[in-house]
């Protein structure tokens, strides 16, 4: 069937901020959809609140709305844009839920908007557990036995019938929030009540435990002609009981016979047809009893998912792109497979390698949270590795995780770990279980015993045992011969051992191992990911490394050289690896832009990255894609084959920067700001000298290599001080300490992070405003692209604080000073490319806090707010273009205000306090744009899912220093008809200043207990500024309750003021929505016609 002509304008919903369970995979799917649909001539209206996405780049849609992803806002947009259709299956659960709401409220009917991909009934049938179960049983398939409960009584009844343990799953939530396992009646009370509360419809499913069963996923595609194909099968190494997002997973399925696989495939086909997903991708999860083979259906996502992104990268089959084409009427056989060109999309990819995905966790940032994995997802990112064997892929994946492991290695001495600790770590799934598997095997535990304890399939354990055994062989061989011969070295590489691992075994440096094996002719070869196991010629250069005989990258490059007359220059871009807190989609955005920009200039671009969720690892983004870990060894292997003219390390966050020095030493042509300048900015002493030389001011500081030295420095500059390790991103292990004792505790606690890096100690400037600046410099001139004023004071990590652009309260002379300092610094550091500076402003004094001569987290935000694509321009500058060639206009002309707000993962980590500090904790960000600050801020809060109330009761409890300042704010709140409730201390101050306030004792156990108010949803906003350690723990329960009940909770005075502004702006009137294109147009038309370049 050809494409539909009855629709012209399509509304596409994104998935909003990056949160645990919904990350940049939906930027990948949404971007593909935008491209695919525009290619077909459709007009695209896009809504997404996340400015760090590629899909919200104005050139990807006809109208781009960075507005909150709520049914209300999407309705405003529908009313304004009048799209013919809405495509909700590519923006994760968020988009699906909004579409459902719009349908229920009659909005779609009112504006005659058709739903593409899946309609209301289909989504309902797939998402509503009871409907789904009925449908599955109807077609003769099996499901875990279960029952529904809407209260604790019902829950108890069901559980008794099924027998413990039971699984509790709330209906309609994201990534399993609020679910859990109950082993006994007592646990059930806790898990079930939590589940009922977190369900959108206050319903939980209680089911027979299939914990320990083998877990599988199939990625299915269906077209309007009822053709169905399976794109990929995935087997989870961690069995049922661990969320798929937290499991190590493998593609294709490894331990199913064809008969069993086909039974699963038949089931998947039957399910897709019964549920009725009209077109597009779906994902179906199965569990298989390892003893009997009994197969049960777990769940289905009638949309593109995290696993679809993984499946796309694992096979080369672009699920989201095809899903978009199918949604507008094409059938699978009408779509061409881009990779083979000659075959249609109506086939099933077959792969000739093994893919391993490993989640990346971040428990170290939430020390109060228990490192135990369950059915609620906890990981913040993932890496994918491809190898010819599982062993190779696993080891590549582990070194690609960038958590200090260089493969399936030993961070701890296994002989020193007590057996019972190993047993616990094996039985209870946790973030480092994979390494405890090794310790257990090394200690002599049998494969069977390990499998029994972990319920991980024997096959996986046996594969790990092979690596362990082979490592023994290596050690013995080296012991005997004092070297390793070519045969054994080659086998080590085939088993995925990194040069770094071999260096440890052979007691030499990684560089020497590399030289030795190269001399022996043991070099990495690159193979293609081609969807068809080489049955057809592939045209899309998407590579992975392995140790084989034939190198297809070399062959293809030679072929290309023969065909093309002129040799294009090659630029290699190093990506950011797995997402983590502090380094995520923002850097991938920059890498993609570098690729786009350089392609525009006629360069050949080569992308290196290992994160399957990203747009950068789409084979369409660059000319060649290397899906590889970002380590020295793996990058150098690509260097040998590609010999690029330049390598960009400043866009992928800290990951490539950490490699820069070694790469440079190895002769890699790094372009842009020099490695020495990067070091100059990071090296405290050198940097302090530079600051002095430029006549700038920075807080007193020093760097120490021991605790003793640190104490000395702190005493000299005076407490409070900000302590942290150098060369880290996201404020990892950064803390404000107020006395010597806490400094020592901190250094002890963060020992592992400090390892080898100096400790930096800065004077902490209290009550200062923080300002972030993003600029581009070409070595001669500097363009200050954006000056962002933080809402929270300095001391809160810049990634966690909200910020405003343009800076709306700073005086002109301060702004001028900031611009001058930025320019001075850029020139002094010889920056070629991007530069980010953080300033602290106290009074009229401007302190320089930090300079980062690289892409920053705020680059996409500034680009969206100003309409200037910073990363693209910077990439062009790096290959020799000059700033004067671009018609750059400073942000002063903007007629709108943009607010960036961070999104925090606290609801995922029970027991963790939600107070912000210098260590970054947020996973993502949203943006609010409007004509006034108040409205922009209010939008940002709605988008961050903490909408400000317009009416109701506000709880205020502030630290002593803030008490005087809170009075005016409280008065303002009562003027706006809010009632106020406070704890004794705050209430006293407010009352004595004439504010009417209800008093509550936070320790009161009676009826007037604050927690009860929160639980009864009687509190609409909490303003609580914590001071010192004691009060922090005092109010902790309150803040946790606020998170659980989704009551917005503001922990800084500045945040509270912004909220007042927001409430004021949104009181009594509707929000206005405008596309980026409209905002830019307005700003342009207002701007003086002399579009000359103004460079500061």
């Amino acid at each position, binding site marked *: 069937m050809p494409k539909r002509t009855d629709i012209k304008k399509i509304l596409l919903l994104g998935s909003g901020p990056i949160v645990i369970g919904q990350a940049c995979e939906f930027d990948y799917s949404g971007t593909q959809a935008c491209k695919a649909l525009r290619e077909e001539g459709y007009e695209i209206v896009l809504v997404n609140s996340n400015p760090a996405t590629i899909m919200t780049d104005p050139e990807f849609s006809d109208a781009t709305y960075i507005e909150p992803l709520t049914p209300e806002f999407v309705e405003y947009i529908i009313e304004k844009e009048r799209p013919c259709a809405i495509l909700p299956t590519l923006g994760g659960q968020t988009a699906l839920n909004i579409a459902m709401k719009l349908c229920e409220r009659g909005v779609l009917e009112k504006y005659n908007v058709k739903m593409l991909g899946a309609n209301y009934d289909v989504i309902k049938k797939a998402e509503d557990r009871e409907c789904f179960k009925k449908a599955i049983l109807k077609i003769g398939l099996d499901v875990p036995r279960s029952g529904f409960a809407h209260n604790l009584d019902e829950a108890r009844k069901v559980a008794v019938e099924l027998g413990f343990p039971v699984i509790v799953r709330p209906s309609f939530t994201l990534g399993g929030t609020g679910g859990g396992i109950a082993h006994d009646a007592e646990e059930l009370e806790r898990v079930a009540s939590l589940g009922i509360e977190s369900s959108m419809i206050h319903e939980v499913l209680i089911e027979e435990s299939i914990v320990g069963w083998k877990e599988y996923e199939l990625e299915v595609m269906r077209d309007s002609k009822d053709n169905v194909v399976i794109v990929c099968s995935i087997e989870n190494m961690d069995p049922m009981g661990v969320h798929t997002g937290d499991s190590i997973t493998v593609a294709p399925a490894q331990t199913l016979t*064809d*008969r069993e696989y086909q039974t699963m495939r038949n089931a998947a086909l039957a399910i897709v047809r019964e549920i009725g997903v009209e077109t597009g991708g779906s994902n179906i999860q199965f569990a298989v009893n390892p003893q*009997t083979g009994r197969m049960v259906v777990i769940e289905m996502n009638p949309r593109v998912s995290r696993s679809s992104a993984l499946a796309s990268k694992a096979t080369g089959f672009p699920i989201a792109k095809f899903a978009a084409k199918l949604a507008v009427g094409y059938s699978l056989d009408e779509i061409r497979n881009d990779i083979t060109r000659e075959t249609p999309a109506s086939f099933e990819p077959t792969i000739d390698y093994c893919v391993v995905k490993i989640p990346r966790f971040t428990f170290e940032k939430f020390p109060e949270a228990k490192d135990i994995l369950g059915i609620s997802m906890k990981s913040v990112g993932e890496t994918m590795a491809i190898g010819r064997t*599982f062993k190779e892929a696993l080891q590549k994946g582990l070194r690609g995780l960038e958590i200090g492991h260089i493969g399936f290695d030993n961070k701890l001495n296994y002989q020193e770990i007590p057996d019972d600790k190993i047993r616990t770590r094996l039985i209870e799934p946790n973030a480092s279980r994979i390494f405890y598997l090794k310790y257990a095997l090394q200690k002599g535990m049998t494969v069977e015993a390990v499998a029994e304890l972990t319920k991980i399939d024997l*096959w996986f354990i*046996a594969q790990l045992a092979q690596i362990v055994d082979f490592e023994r062989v290596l050690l013995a061989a080296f012991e005997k011969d004092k070297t390793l011969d070519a045969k054994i070295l080659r086998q080590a590489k085939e088993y995925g051992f990194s040069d770094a691992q071999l260096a440890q075994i052979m007691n030499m440096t990684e560089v020497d191992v590399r030289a030795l094996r190269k001399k022996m002719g043991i070099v990495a070869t690159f193979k293609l990911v081609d969807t068809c196991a*080489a049955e057809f010629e592939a045209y899309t250069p998407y590579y992975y490394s392995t140790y084989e005989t034939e190198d297809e990258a070399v062959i293809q490059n030679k072929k290309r050289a023969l065909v093309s007359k002129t040799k294009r220059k090659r630029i290699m871009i190093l990506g950011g690896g797995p997402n983590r807190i502090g380094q995520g989609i923002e850097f991938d955005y920059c890498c993609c832009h570098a690729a786009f920009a350089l392609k525009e200039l006629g360069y050949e671009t080569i992308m290196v990255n290992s994160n399957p969720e990203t747009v950068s690892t789409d084979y369409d983004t660059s000319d060649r894609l290397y899906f590889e870990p970002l380590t020295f060894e793996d990058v150098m292997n690509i260097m040998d084959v590609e010999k690029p003219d330049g390598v960009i390390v400043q866009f992928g966050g800290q990951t490539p920067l950490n490699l820069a020095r070694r790469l440079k030493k190895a002769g890699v042509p790094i372009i842009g700001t020099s490695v020495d300048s990067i070091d100059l900015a990071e090296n405290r002493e050198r940097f302090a000298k530079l600051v002095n030389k430029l006549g700038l001011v920075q807080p007193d500081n020093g760097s120490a290599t021991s605790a003793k030295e640190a104490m000395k420095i702190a005493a000299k500059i005076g407490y409070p001080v900000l302590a942290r390790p150098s060369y880290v991103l996201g404020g990892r292990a950064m803390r404000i300490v107020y006395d010597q004792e806490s400094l020592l505790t901190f250094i002890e606690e963060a020992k592992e992070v400090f390892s080898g890096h100096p400790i930096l100690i800065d004077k902490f400037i209290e009550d200062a405003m923080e300002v972030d600046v993003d600029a581009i410099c070409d070595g001669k001139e500097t363009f200050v692209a954006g000056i962002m004023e933080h809402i929270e004071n300095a001391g809160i990590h810049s990634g966690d604080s909200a910020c405003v652009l343009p800076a709306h309260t700073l005086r002109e002379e301060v702004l001028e000073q900031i611009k001058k300092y930025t320019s001075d610094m850029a020139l002094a550091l010889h920056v070629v490319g991007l530069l980010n500076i953080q300033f602290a402003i106290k009074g009229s004094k401007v302190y320089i806090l930090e300079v980062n001569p690289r892409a920053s987290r705020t680059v996409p935000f500034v680009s969206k707010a100003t309409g200037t694509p910073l990363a693209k321009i910077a990439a062009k500058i790096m290959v020799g273009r000059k700033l004067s060639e671009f018609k750059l206009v400073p942000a002063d002309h903007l007629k709108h205000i943009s607010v960036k707000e961070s999104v925090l993962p606290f609801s995922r980590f029970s027991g963790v306090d939600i107070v912000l500090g210098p260590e970054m904790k947020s996973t993502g960000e949203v943006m609010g744009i409007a004509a006034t600050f108040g409205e922009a801020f209010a939008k940002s809060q709605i988008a961050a899912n903490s909408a400000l109330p317009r009416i109701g009761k506000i709880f205020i409890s502030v630290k002593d220093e803030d008490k005087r300042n809170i009075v005016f704010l409280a008065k303002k709140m009562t003027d706006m008809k809010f009632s106020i409730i406070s704890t004794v201390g705050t209430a006293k101050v407010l009352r004595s200043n004439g504010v009417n306030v209800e008093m509550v004792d936070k320790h009161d156990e009676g009826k007037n207990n604050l927690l009860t108010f929160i639980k009864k949803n009687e509190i609409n906003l909490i303003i609580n500024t914590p001071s010192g350690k004691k009060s922090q723990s005092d109010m902790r329960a309150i803040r946790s309750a606020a998170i659980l009940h989704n009551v917005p909770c503001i922990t800084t005075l500045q945040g509270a003021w912004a909220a007042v502004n927001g409430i004021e702006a949104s009181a009594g009137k509707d929000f206005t929505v405008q596309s980026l294109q409209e905002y830019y147009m307005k700003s342009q038309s207002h701007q003086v016609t002399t579009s000359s370049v103004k460079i500061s």
Partner: protein
Amino acid sequence: MKDAILYLEDGSSFLGRSLAITGETDGEVVFNTAMTGYQEILTDPSYAGQIVVMTYPLIGNYGVNEEDAESSGVHVKGFVVKEFCRYHSNYRATQSLIEYLNQHKILAIEGVDTRALTRHLRVCGAMKALLSTEDFDSKSLAQKIKNIPSMEGADWVKTVTASSKYVWPVSPAGSRPRFKVAAIDCGIKWNILRILASLGCEVHVFPATASAEEIFAINPDGVFLSNGPGDPAAVSYVIETVRKLLGNLPIFGICLGHQILGLALGGQTYKLKFGHHGANHPVKDLLDNRIGITSQNHGFCVDVKSFKSGEVEIIDVNLNDQTVEGLRHKKFPLLSVQHHPEAAPGPHDAQYLFKHFIKMMEQEGHRVTGSPGHK
């Protein structure tokens, strides 16, 4: 473990290591792209005379079991993989693949860059090869390879067909058969028999040399022409038999059976460059435009242009290369497909075709009422 070489007709060679079995074997080397189903592939008689390369690198993961064999023996002449699994895992497994291969004395090698080998075969075509743990001398290997007969013109059916007639009973055991089917065994896969039996057929399996008269003699409701190895043009005796059956009985052919039917109908067959061996081939049913993902295993193909009469209709086409995947006849009750609706290994999308055969038998039964033995 012993070093091994796979030496190809064009002089190229690939190195690996053998499992326990040593020696030398020869055959036509082909690659199979299915990711599961090595046991079915090893036991599929259609692979007689061939050395099979698996493109999926990890083979043996789920061991070998008693239920998934497609015949009583292993038919491949050699087996080439990237890595054999040392420790399998599956609740149905009764043996490891390595034990099984050793037991059947199959020269199997691992450690081969199977992707490079596959790419080579894709570009240069399937070709004769020698697999050896003894001889690494290219001159001597080149000499030996000349003496291996080519797949074209080779009758491999006689090596795999049943030595005498037998009956595969209807299932479940004891139920009353609805149809009597005569199957000409050119190397029939058990899953075909299993499916026919489950649809109510009592299958009388005849050696490929059976005459039309012998088949008429049991008074069957329909005839099944099985899959099998080698060049269809080389089994003229089966073609002759089929020619006599045409129009008299409902006929269903699969793979080699389909090619034989094509030849019996006056068409021609030709050799594909490297054939289709896998479980992911899209086939479009031209009658209802439905696309099924099919299991395939063939090196020869029916030439669509060779039918002059206009009575043969192409009903299935391969969407990857537009080759013929199925045919029927305007007058005769017959149906044949190039792919494998019985799967094993592979998707079950085309299993409905067996029901078409049943339907044909039902209709013919009504039409001729009784003795279909006349001419």
